């Protein structure tokens, strides 16, 4: 049997539009120091570092090497993972495997981003095939707009339904001191915000954010000594399905459907809506909050809007989603997936402050990116069998 692994602490920067006071290395240092403070550990206790972001977002090649001053990786095993938007969640999954391997006891996992330092859409566009996709594609916004158009066409969902997702996440963000956009918006404000790509408008989309997140993963036996109520990793699963955009199946998010079914099976979840207490999902835009929760099996296809309007996913509802405010309120891309995992762990540990959901035993976090890819990490209060 593999070693069990828990998240024992984390640190986030206060995420902002632009952090001129620090360079990228110093931003990483800030999050890392906060994670160490959170756990009472020093860098000497850390036996390895994993870090990730997207090269062309900051224009830095070999970020793992460049960031050593701030990551604490001097003299330590240091590794970089990069999978685009899923980078943060990919890092969390790696944190799990590397500690579960028995080769590490206290592993520092860092995701970061300085979106302010480049043109995000230009940078994202370089993620796609230079010969076939790049000249017509317009980054995440165009891809997501296409998905939204198909969802509306297939199920009759409306822009107003989607706006309800933004309203929820932005309301939740007011409770999270680390979130970037901490101001409520109304349905009307979302609907009347400037158009980006039909049917998406400015307030349907995530912002561009500077920020970093560091999470410490520890092995069984070590974790309990660091933290009275660690967040145990119950399971991970992911799917990175496509090479070409045109191969994707725009009705729904197949990668999330497949990954979640694998994860539920592993962990023994039969009714996710009832058995999972809170979700921190990488929903980069409003429509994802309708359609992707269907893929997670919370309701039948096309019924996402009903769950939203019924308040099921609000704080206080049956299954709160994104009590942190989610990605629509804060998106330092290379950190975003890891923030979801860190927030899910905070909920399990009971350390989520004003955004705490009562009695969380099982929490799910997700990452999204690449060519419609999905990563999942589930954490819980009880050691897995």
């Amino acid at each position, binding site marked *: 049997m*593999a070693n069990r692994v828990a998240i024992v602490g984390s640190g986030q920067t206060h995420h902002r539009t632009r952090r001129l006071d620090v360079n990228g290395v110093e931003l990483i240092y800030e999050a890392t120091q906060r994670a160490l403070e959170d756990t009472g550990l020093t860098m000497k206790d850390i036996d390895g570092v994993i870090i990730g972001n997207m090269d062309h977002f900051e224009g830095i090649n*070999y970020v793992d090497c460049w960031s050593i001053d701030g990551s604490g990786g001097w003299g330590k095993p240091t590794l970089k*993972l990069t999978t685009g938007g899923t980078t943060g969640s990919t890092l969390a999954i790696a944190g799990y495997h590397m500690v579960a391997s*028995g080769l590490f006891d206290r592993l520092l996992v860092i995701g970061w981003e300085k979106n302010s330092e480049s043109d995000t859409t230009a940078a994202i566009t370089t993620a796609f095939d230079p010969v076939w996709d790049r000249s017509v594609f317009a980054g995440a916004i165009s891809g997501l707009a296409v998905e939204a158009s198909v969802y509306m066409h297939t199920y009759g969902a409306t822009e107003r339904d989607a706006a309800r997702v933004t309203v929820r996440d932005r309301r939740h963000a007011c409770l999270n001191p680390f979130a970037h956009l901490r101001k409520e918006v109304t349905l009307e404000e979302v609907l009347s915000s400037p158009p980006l790509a039909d049917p998406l408008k400015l307030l349907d989309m995530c912002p561009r954010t500077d920020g970093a997140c560091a999470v410490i993963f520890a092995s069984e036996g070590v974790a309990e000594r660091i933290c009275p109520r660690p967040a145990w990793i119950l399971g991970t699963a992911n799917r*990175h399905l496509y090479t070409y955009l045109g191969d994707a199946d725009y009705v729904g998010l197949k990668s999330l459907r497949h990954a979640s079914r694998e994860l539920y099976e592993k962990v023994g979840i039969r009714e996710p809506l009832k058995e999972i207490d809170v979700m921190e999902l990488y929903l980069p835009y409003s429509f994802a909050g309708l359609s992707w929760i269907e893929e997670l099996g919370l309701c039948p296809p096309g019924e996402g809007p009903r769950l939203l309007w019924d308040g099921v996913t609000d704080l206080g509802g049956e299954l709160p989603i994104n009590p942190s405010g989610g990605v629509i309120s804060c998106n330092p891309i290379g950190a975003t997936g890891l923030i979801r995992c860190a927030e899910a762990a905070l909920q399990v540990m009971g350390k989520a402050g004003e955004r705490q959901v009562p009695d969380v035993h099982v929490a799910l976090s997700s990452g999204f990116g690449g060519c419609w890819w999905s990563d999942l990490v589930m954490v819980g209060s009880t050691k897995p069998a």
Partner: protein
Amino acid sequence: MMDRIAIIGVGQTRQERNKVHETFADMVFEAVQQALEHARIGIREIDNVVTASNDFWDGRTISSMAVNDACGSYDKNISTVEGDGTFAAFYGMTRILSGAYDTTLVVAHCKGSESDAKHITNAMFDPVYLRPLGLDNISTAAMQANRYMTRYGITEEQCALVSVKNHENAYRNPNAHLPMRLTVEDVLRSRLLADPIKLLDASPVSDGACALILARESAAARYTDRPVWVRGVGYAADPYHLGDRDLADCDALVAAAKRAYGMAGIADPAEEIDLVELYDAFSYQELLWTEGLGLCGRGEGGKLAASGATRTDGSIPVNPSGGLLSAHTVTVAGLVRIAEAVLQIRGEADQRQVPAVRTAVAHGVNGPCGQSHCVWVLGA
């Protein structure tokens, strides 16, 4: 102690100057198919995949997206290490040790022919303090060579011997890019790039892909009667700013080797290791890395090479494949070192076979002037 992990199959494309007919995906598909055949395993029995690539070299953010179809990861768990393949293989190994998977496919690709190495390697350097100086991999390596040779009295002739040996070895490796019969004089007289590095002290830019398949012991037995065991792995990083370290040292390599040897129970590497495949991006690096790997004392890398010990017929053959000097595929190069070590241990290295290899070391590097090193000890 960790469970036993085996490498059950390896595959590599030819490493060439310009694979203009092939996309990243084409190269990856070729390497993966070879590895599957070598391991006598089907793609459906591979339960997870780790790819390795570099977004700058590929000219593509999320460079792994190009090879999702070709690496056979459809509907499987997959991840991507950005950096040398030895590091990706390490992560691939932990995914088995974690208990989550039985068989990991690791595949790396790179095509240096598609970009301009000066631009790509300049981007390794800090944009505020270093990039404006116009630094690249060659000019920074030259400073390391200068410092190393000055501190220990290493000679240009000793460096040249490495180039002569490795290019000669490449004649026996059908996958190598640049086999050449050279004399020390040829190397010394070749065009000066940046003192003291000359053209024939430097590696070419090569295209290629390499794949390997890792399996836990119980799974390995189903596929092969010739598993190559992972006896130890270690990796570590030095600080970033070149002036923060003494470039004549390679502390990160020493630390990485110490971990790997510790895990493998190796006390006297020069005595216990039968063969080394290391990351010789420049001729002086083979000398420096043999020191870091503990094959000789500090400052004795030049003497070790001059003694003939590192030749294929010597006491500790280094890079019988021809090394990076004969084929430098960047992120692929370290994975090729592992693949070559595996072939040697299995006795399948054909003309470049070194007799009776039971324990071999493979080595990979990330970052400028060997900032981050990964060391593998493999055994029969």
